[in-house]
């Protein structure tokens, strides 16, 4: 799946950003390779979401560079970056709560295929079909006509990601796709997700707190710590690193005795 010889899809160098005195990014260097699934782990406040926010144009870094397919995307607005092929999903699902799930999906399809159509219906046959096919792939067809705010957390997460996928991104950044999902649904959600993304040939970066998920689905793992990347490599290697075990996984298992801020995945 992964093509290591190809040039990296996304290349970040020396990213820096501080909020007041807190360094959310303190010299981030990272290459995302074509076709890989890269997991980002680390305690809360380490700057994982900040990295996604900088890559998608929501926050501007104070220093460093980000290149996508060899071209700088610094200074572009979120919507310009999206159009170049970088999608994202959110820790708190960002759905249109007064629309049905189907309409949410159809709006995402329209966003790609042509939103500026004032008098033809959104749910025209071809878009409705595509939206339904998308929902089917994510296992959401049964709730297609429910209002988005009536779904459970797992379904909302999937719908949120489905909307990002409808835009046909080459790179998808997912912020904690499994947080808040009930433990019993979690593996099902991830399996669905991975299957769809592999089929679509999407390169994925995802922030994750569940080490089982990371071990099973990630090609590589990047460990975030205080705005820096503390370790990077295949899961088997990184997750076996004693320092990583102590600082990241240790608190996941033992409930934050180490003085670090509690990881958000502890409740899973």
């Amino acid at each position: 799946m992964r093509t290591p010889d190809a040039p990296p899809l996304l290349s970040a160098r020396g990213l820096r950003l501080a909020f007041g005195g807190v360094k959310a990014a303190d010299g981030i260097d990272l290459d995302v390779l074509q076709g890989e699934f890269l997991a980002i782990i680390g305690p809360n406040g380490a700057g994982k979401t900040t990295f996604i926010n900088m890559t998608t144009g929501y926050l501007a870094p104070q220093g460093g560079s980000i290149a996508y397919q060899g071209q700088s995307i610094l200074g572009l607005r979120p919507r310009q970056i999206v159009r170049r092929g970088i999608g994202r999903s959110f820790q708190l699902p960002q759905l249109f709560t007064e629309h049905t799930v189907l309409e949410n999906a159809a709006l995402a399809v329209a966003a790609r295929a042509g939103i500026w159509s004032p008098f033809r219906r959104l749910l025209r046959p071809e878009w409705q079909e595509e939206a339904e096919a998308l929902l089917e792939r994510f296992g959401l067809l049964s709730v297609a006509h429910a209002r988005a705010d009536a779904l459970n957390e797992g379904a909302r997460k999937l719908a949120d990601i489905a909307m990002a996928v409808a835009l046909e991104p080459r790179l998808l950044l997912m912020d904690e796709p499994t947080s808040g999902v009930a433990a019993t649904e979690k593996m099902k959600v991830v399996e669905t997700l991975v299957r769809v993304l592999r089929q679509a040939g999407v390169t994925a970066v995802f922030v994750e707190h569940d080490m089982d998920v990371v071990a099973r689905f990630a090609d590589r793992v990047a460990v975030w710590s205080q705005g820096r990347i503390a370790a990077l490599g295949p899961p088997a290697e990184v997750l076996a690193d004693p320092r990583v075990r102590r600082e990241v996984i240790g608190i996941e298992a033992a409930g934050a005795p180490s003085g670090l801020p509690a990881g958000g995945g502890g409740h899973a």
Partner: protein
Amino acid sequence: MSNTPARHPSASSLPRLGGAARGAGLEMALTLIGALALILIAWAAPWLRFVLTIALAKGIAVLGILLLLRAGQVSFGHAMFLATGAYTVAFLAPSVPEALILLPLGGALALGLGLVVGLFVVRYRDIFFGMLNLALSMVLYSLLEKLYSLTKGTDGIRVAGLTFAGQSPPRETQEWLMFGLALGLALVFGLLVRAYLASPMGQALKGIKTRETRLEFMGVPARRVLLFAYAFSALMGGVAGTLVAMTSRHVTPLLAYWTSSGELVFIAILGGAGSALGPFLGAVAFELVRVYAAAQLADAWQMILGAVLLGVILFAPGGVWGILSARLKGRAA
């Protein structure tokens, strides 16, 4: 949150499985019945023809308020577009008396103003959106009032000697022509707004209310979505203004005053923001009541409107259309 007018669940014009076809059919049937009833009243009670024409014109302007309500935005200044259309007629009628030219011209000028003002106000939401619109309309009002040499101030301008397709028919025919024009345009704009609301642009408008960030992250500029709706609403306001000017034949700065804007918002909430039919139901009810009540209660008229508005918002959020459609659907089911 169910007591916000624009959120009333039964008021969505979206197709839902099952109830969809029946809802649309009901709306169409009511539209036809309503149009026929209006014609009948205008024929049986000639003194109401004028009132109904004004009501239809205002209904067209209220359609614009309804569009913005979909995005969760209230404009307290839309009378500025009404006044733009009306003053276009007043200024140009002496040189271009043709109604069929003045009408699109008034609409076009309001559309232009809407684009300029819109570029500024769509950067804001909620409080700022509402208040900036109010402020800008008050600017227009004071200009119309103060630039006496141009506008004759509060005396206003009389509109005389209009022609229709080159003819100047007798007064009664002119009244019928204006009534027919208003009714026809009401139907056209009503259908356009209905289609617009179901279109991607209309649905994205609703998305601005609930999750604007998501629109941006889908590559859709939310401000442009709102700008199109705003410009469309300004166009309808302008067309309504030309109709008002050509019907009442007298144009004053009061058309741009906050009370006029307040009336439009009042009608939108009274009629219910759920359907393109609501503005017309609201406008007809409003104008008919005013004919009989306003003369006796001139100094308390705004007070009554305000009290009713409070009542509708707090106790009957679906407006007249909401109550009506809930009743009818309940009976049909």
